[in-house]
């Protein structure tokens, strides 16, 4: 059997290290393959001087099937993890010979491995054969071409998904919990009374409050993104050491969360940096990844004890965001009409045609003031 005569393992350059004079130990039938649990020739070597002993983990057949290195299990052609390679090919819609479905059952694994080995020895399709005499099957140029193709297709599919992002039907697919009956019966009045949807960013007199209530978050926003944003903003005004986020709590179903700081000072700095579209009247607004998020001072409260409560809260948040957006728009409109150019709020309005920004009194539509 070819297995027993294997002299050289199938490994990538990185695993071999930099030393051209490499000593390798071979143990025929030395270990059990991690994937198919059959015995295979084990190879061990020291990649770099003083580094840990590297060894092969899977048998040659399994590696061949998946086109991966026997020890690090990265793809041999592209040097990326197998899962990434499979995902890339899948999303690009291109055929991938090397994607293998693994079954959890030990017996099935061995059977599959055996089958594969037979197929190989009998000669299978030429492009599935990895080990052929002569030139390598996937030459460098070819590999680049495939990569380019995949990249193009990935970009295309990403654009397509971006365009079709707003899908109202999908938004409501929360599953069985959101069935209308449940939502009608859940009462979130208690929770709502405690949450300051119309709160503002005036410094609370109670100095023990060092946390903010934020709402309007999307499924996309992760804790990490919020943390990054805050650190960025605070880095502009204070040294690194002072920024101490105690915790960030985001409840994506309820579309709201809390940001807690350890020190009141830092919290105050953040509240100063955040945009306040209506001054002290309404909640401040932040834009994280182009998604508007409202922020007010608040102590950490409960956001619901069951999924249906959270989902209902999410609906309330959406409605509230719309209301607030309308209010803000009106307020900005008023300010602009009064010739008040001092509000430096970020808006999404694209710059108008030339001449639209000039405020002639004759153009003033606000005859009441």
């Amino acid at each position: 059997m070819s297995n027993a005569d294997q002299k050289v393992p199938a490994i990538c350059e990185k695993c071999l290290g930099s030393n051209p004079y490499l000593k390798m130990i071979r143990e025929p039938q030395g270990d059990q393959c991690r994937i198919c649990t059959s015995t295979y020739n084990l190879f061990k070597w020291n990649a770099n001087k003083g580094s840990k002993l590297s060894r092969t983990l899977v048998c040659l057949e399994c590696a061949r099937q998946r086109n991966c290195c026997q020890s690090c299990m990265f793809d041999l052609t592209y040097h990326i993890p197998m899962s990434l390679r499979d995902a890339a090919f899948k999303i690009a819609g291109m055929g991938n010979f090397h994607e293998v479905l693994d079954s959890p059952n030990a017996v099935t694994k061995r059977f599959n491995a055996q089958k594969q080995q037979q197929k190989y020895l009998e000669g299978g399709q030429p492009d599935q054969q990895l080990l052929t005499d002569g030139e390598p099957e996937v030459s460098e140029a070819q590999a680049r071409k495939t990569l380019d193709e995949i990249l193009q297709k990935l970009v295309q599919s990403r654009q397509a998904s971006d365009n079709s992002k707003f899908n109202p039907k999908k938004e409501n697919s929360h599953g069985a919990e959101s069935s209308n009956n449940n939502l009608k019966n859940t009462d979130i009045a208690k929770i709502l009374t405690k949450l300051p949807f119309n709160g503002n960013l005036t410094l609370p007199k109670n100095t023990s409050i060092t946390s903010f209530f934020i709402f309007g978050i999307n499924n996309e926003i992760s804790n990490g993104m919020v943390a990054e944003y805050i650190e960025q903003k605070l880095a502009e005004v204070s040294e690194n050491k002072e920024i101490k986020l105690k915790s960030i709590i985001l409840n994506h179903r309820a579309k709201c969360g809390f940001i807690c700081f350890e020190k009141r000072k830092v919290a105050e700095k953040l509240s100063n940096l955040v945009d306040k579209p209506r001054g002290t009247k309404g909640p401040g607004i932040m834009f994280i990844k182009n998604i508007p998020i409202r922020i007010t001072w608040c102590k950490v409260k409960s956001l619901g004890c069951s999924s249906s409560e959270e989902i209902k809260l999410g609906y309330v948040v959406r409605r509230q965001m719309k209301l607030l957006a309308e209010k803000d728009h009106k307020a900005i409109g008023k300010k602009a009409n009064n010739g008040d150019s001092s509000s430096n709020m970020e808006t999404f309005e694209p710059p108008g045609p030339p001449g639209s920004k000039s405020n002639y009194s004759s153009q003033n539509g606000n005859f009441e003031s």
Partner: protein
Amino acid sequence: MSGESKQDLVVDPNISEKKKRKKKAARVQVDPSVLDEDDKPQQTGNIFNIWYYNWGSKENYQKKSPFRVNVKQDSGYTKADKIPNSFVCLFFARGCCHKGKHCDYLHRIPNQTKDAFPATTDCFGRDKFSNYRDDMGGVGNFLRPNRTIYVGKLPLDAIPRDSSIEQVISEQFGEFGRIERFRVIHEKNCAFVTFENEWNAQFAKEAMAHQSLVKDEVLNLRWANEDPNPQAKARNQRQLQEQAMNTIKNLLNQNEQRPQTMPKRKTISENRNTPKKLNDGESINSKQISKKRQNTFGDDAAKPEEKKLKSTKHVESSGFLIGYGSDSDSDDDDD
């Protein structure tokens, strides 16, 4: 090797030149004299199970751990910081490493950007397996990178009034790395915590296992299954897509700049009578070798076996040497 004592002044280029920062040595977490000499566990039952190495049944196994790691206090400099590619100390994560700065493993949380452990092991160096355990415990699966931990047996009743379970989770798990998101399911008394990085997830799983959040309950940490929520699935798809795109872009860029020529390796000419499908040493010509060496890229879907071993190739197995002599054995420079 005593260079890592507290007396060392190491200038960290990231900090302003005015301050010189002392790198803190890792703290000894447990007094070694407190630990038993032999590792036989204390008797808590009647029958000793020699397979699982404990007394009695699973219930006894689910005990609260007497140790706990405090990342701020305990992390620091160890021997392993000088050695590249070292792993993180498992006992440090569990709070019971008695070696302190002499430990051969790292005493810190895995760094998101700098640390890169091989895909086939976890951050502690333990090998991953090809599928999950039935109870989703232990080390994970190398075929599916998993950054999400399932946290069971949450003490939802025991939370103090002025705080919430979300706060507690966020604070305590946040110690071990950047949390990407977490979701508490009150009905089931459980939570799913997703980290930005799988190494941090592995560390947190070991660090928080058998610990309690509030008082005395024992958490049950396991690897999480894939999120069945279609929104989450779509989100994960998109993330994977982004990742794939970035890696491909990097690959393409990498290849445009010719990488530095790695030392050329030549295989030992091998025995002629290798079986049909495998490549012979003779089919490699020097042109192919140099082509291979220039680029890590086209490295061989076709010829994974050709990997270069020069001259001395020790073959040790049950005491017999396989001769590698061959006709064209001109490259026989023995070191």
